């Protein structure tokens, strides 16, 4: 199958998104370290939420900026 122009994300974009998802899981956080509390959450949960925000904004920007419109109106 020839390269389809609609596969608009390159490997580096997928790796960036994967990296953010892996970082959103606090596997690297020290045990029992919960303080300081931020926005009603322990520090690790607040950090995880921050990474999730970054992940969603990155994905949205990739969709808007890289996915090109086709002449495909039904």
């Amino acid at each position: 199958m020839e390269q389809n122009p609609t596969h608009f994300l390159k490997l580096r974009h997928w790796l960036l998104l994967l990296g953010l998802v892996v970082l959103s899981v606090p596997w690297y956080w020290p045990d029992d370290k919960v303080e300081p509390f931020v926005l009603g959450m322990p520090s690790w949960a607040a950090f995880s939420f921050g990474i999730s925000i970054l992940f969603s904004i990155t994905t949205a920007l990739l969709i808007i900026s890289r996915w090109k419109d086709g002449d495909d109106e039904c």
Partner: protein
Amino acid sequence: MLMLVLFCLYLCILMMLAWLGRRRATSKTPHDFYLAGGKLGFLVLICTLFATQYSGNTFMGFPGKAYRMGYAYMMSVTFMMCIVTFYLLYAPALRARAVLRGYVTPCDWIHDRYRNRGLTSVCAVLMCIAMLNYLLAQLLAMGNAVEGLTGRPGSFAVGVLFLSVVIVLYETVGGMRAVAWTDTLQGIMMFVAVLILGGYLLTQHEELALLPARILELEPDKVRPPELKVCVKWLSFLCLAGLGGAMYPQGIQRIFAAKSTRVLRWSLGAMVLLPLLTVFFAYFMGIMAIEQFPGLGKAQSDQVMTRMLDLISTQGPVLYFGVTLLLLGALAAMMSTADSVLLSLSSIVIQDIVVKTIGYSASDEKLLKLGKISSWVLMGIVVVVALQLQGITLFRLLVIKFDLLVQVAPAFILGLYLPRLGAGTALVGIAAGCAVAVAGFALDPKWAWVHPGTVGLGVNLFICVVGSFLFPSESFEQKP
């Protein structure tokens, strides 16, 4: 009383929209009935995607799970974003093909790509199992919501029966157009409800600042960072539920139904940001409930949202009105997901199983009639099951569904990337993936670090990739 008045008004508007949807139908074809003729604009598409993806589980299941799991259920926020990210693996390419070749159901792509009746029917059956499960979860959530609202045990059955009839009625009257338009109303209601919830949480910022310390005293495990096993399961869940969620037929059909690629990409761009508001607030309500209602059992914890709302509504007339709107929004979320699932389910049963698999041939008009009859029959079956299953934990249902549905993903997505992937290899992959998932689920090993469905998906992917090199297909031809 206020709730009753608003609810009656809401039902009247739903029926009016369904009638308008019927009047706007341009032809009696499956494409027009199931995809609204591929004419969904930005506002309707974003609302119908939002209302369909955010369901009874979001409003009732997620707070319950956050209550049981604690802060580690932050995974729910990322999981909803992952669904949109996984769409990017196939939506751009598949959308272009769907427009060109007039696909109505997701299995149209499978059928067109592999030309194998067995594979088409297996994928259709797996999708139907997942959707019946999902529909059941919505009905259970509706029953729980009505029971929570009225406080009467018998009201579960009445709520399930009445709301189910309403849903089938407007779904069969107006098809996708009615579903999408009612979803627009429901999506707006849900968004207003979420804003109210967010507004309430902001007013509680001083209390919220002390919340982790209080929960730490009550149940420290719910505040501490999750152990490595939970983190691995977290990643497994993101993979399983994110990819499984991207395989929902009702979501795929909305990709087909978008008016243009421009409309679709702006809608998906907005969708990926929504969990930051919607799921996060639902999650936080579950966390707040840990302090308010300690010691609840599994089934009771599914109702922590309604308990929290009861509590909030006693704090003044403004909050009472806000909670009333929010409860309507929650009911709208359940109904909008149920209607979309039911429409998709009936389209797959008729178009893929009856026509493609069994080989039944009839006019478009007759097939549409059969589709409407199947909607009533399927809803009837699910209602009977729902009435038998009162009290089951909603989240358990959600996970069982994804374990199986995700097994369709390799054949569905790799079909776009691996031209040599054949139907036989894809079928073996699905069979192996399902066998692993079902065996893992039946054994339910407590030591397992990943979900059975994720292991099955790994096996399935391996077979598809290796098999496409060892046993390359010669039947697939490049199509325009």
